[in-house]
């Protein structure tokens, strides 16, 4: 059935695994960066906390509630960006957004984002693309602001 294959194509097992795993959920305290994002279409919220060490993303945690796509995307983002320098992290967010907006092919994604390819199926569902990009946009906004005043000294 056409619908069946589309369902499996959109909700790949790997997405469901990330969704169920609870990996990278929670809040970091103290945090160097803190950002809050809202998808006004569905009311979903994401709160991100980021720790930076030696100019590199050391840890990302997300909290809030959301759909399989937004939660899996948040977890994959955290996993993929940890270890990246801050400028590289911003580049990777840009590369992911380009892929989701079909400005670039999934095959052209940087190696750090290999796992994130599983989200490519979402592109067929225009109304759900925002679910996938919410955490990434939120992170970018957070990184472009000054580090949180409460953060540790670097």
């Amino acid at each position, binding site marked *: *059935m*056409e*619908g*069946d294959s*589309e*369902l499996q194509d*959109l*909700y790949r097992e790997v997405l*469901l695994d990330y969704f*169920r795993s609870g990996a990278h959920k929670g809040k970091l305290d103290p945090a160097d960066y803190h950002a809050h994002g809202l998808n006004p*279409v*569905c*009311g*979903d919220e994401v709160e991100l906390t980021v720790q930076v060490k030696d100019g590199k993303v050391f840890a990302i945690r997300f909290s809030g*509630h*959301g*759909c*399989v*796509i*937004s*939660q899996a995307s948040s977890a994959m983002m955290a996993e993929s960006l940890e270890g990246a320098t801050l400028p590289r992290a911003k580049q990777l967010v840009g590369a992911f957004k380009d892929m989701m907006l079909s400005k670039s092919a999934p095959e052209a994604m940087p190696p750090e984002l290999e796992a994130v390819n599983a989200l490519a199926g979402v592109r067929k*569902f225009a109304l*759900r693309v925002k*679910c996938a990009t919410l955490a990434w946009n939120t992170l970018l906004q957070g990184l472009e602001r000054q580090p949180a005043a409460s953060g540790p000294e670097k």
Partner: protein
Amino acid sequence: MIDAKKIREDFPILRRRVHGKPLVYLDNAATTQKPRQVIAALTDFYENHNANVHRGVHTLSDEATQLVEDSRKKVAAFINAPKPETVIFTRNATESINLVAHAWGRKSLSAGDEILLTEMEHHSNIVPWQLLAEEKGVKLGFIPVRPDGTLDLEQAARLITPKTKLLAFTAASNALGTLNAVEKLLALAKAAGAKTLVDGAQWVPHLKTDVTRWDCDFLVFSAHKMLGPTGIGVLYGKEALLESMDPFLGGGDMISQVSLERSTYNVLPYKFEAGTPNIADAVAFGAALDYLSRLGMDAVRAHELELTAAALKIFSEQEGVPVYGPKDLAQRGGVVSFNIDGIHAHDIGTAFDLEGVAVRAGHHCCQPLWAKLKAAGSARASFYVYNTLEEVSELGRVLRKTAAFFGKPAAAAR
């Protein structure tokens, strides 16, 4: 009795396939589909009668004017309004509420006055009053929603005081399907001397409406939720009250005389219909009302009850599927609002769509309500005259399949 299978023949869109499956359209609380009679009325207007209203002396202008006024009479009859002049055409229920907030609220309310709403209001019956409250220093109060999705009428009686100048509430909840005790609420408000606004967006399309019996001051609703076109809605108001109000928008058609210094305003309903109105859609709305009147609103209600009862039974047999709103069918419209444990409503909506089943997913523009019910939102199936018991069975099949696909708690699918 309604013969939904026969009715379906009037709705060309219901022949569509979505993702390779026959469309099962269950998003009627958002907007309904349009029968060919309504589409034909729209085409006929543009092909044969199109002209501006109220000002030309030529034949087409006269015809267009007549057609709009015929529709106004049909609306008045449909809600049992005493006079067609008490029916104002707006864009939709939202604009109607904004009209009252501006034209009545700004003139009649002052700091310290209170407006009472409910926790189950659509954002359209909250935000206009918040804007007014900010401007005028008016206080907003909210009748609480109980966990079963009904309003707490005891609290309502306590919250309505002589300070309450307006009680504005929805007759039927778009998010939960709750049918509110409209007459009891109106009686409470009247006893306190408050004006009343009934949001009929989810009631008028589904149940008999009688503003004369209700004796409400205002009623608002939208055509597109009752087989009519988008972009046309109604404000009914009591004549004396409408007369006492200032205009909402200024412009052509709403004036009597204009000089460079001042203007005098036109009579009802034109005082509130500035500029060229949505003529064609008003005309086509008349065809929608004819269609519903032919079916009879009692039959519409009975049909929706049958579908809702069948759906509730199917949903209650599924574990891990909370259903919101009252269990008592007498207090419930044709709406089944539900979740599948562990899955977000949007994932339900997408999974259903892939099976051709169109449901709404999210907060349904009722964020305060979901905050109260401690849920992020729901998926919502809502029925109308063309839905069938077979479609309800299909809804059940897709529910079981979706719960099984996403696994975990609800996976004990039968």
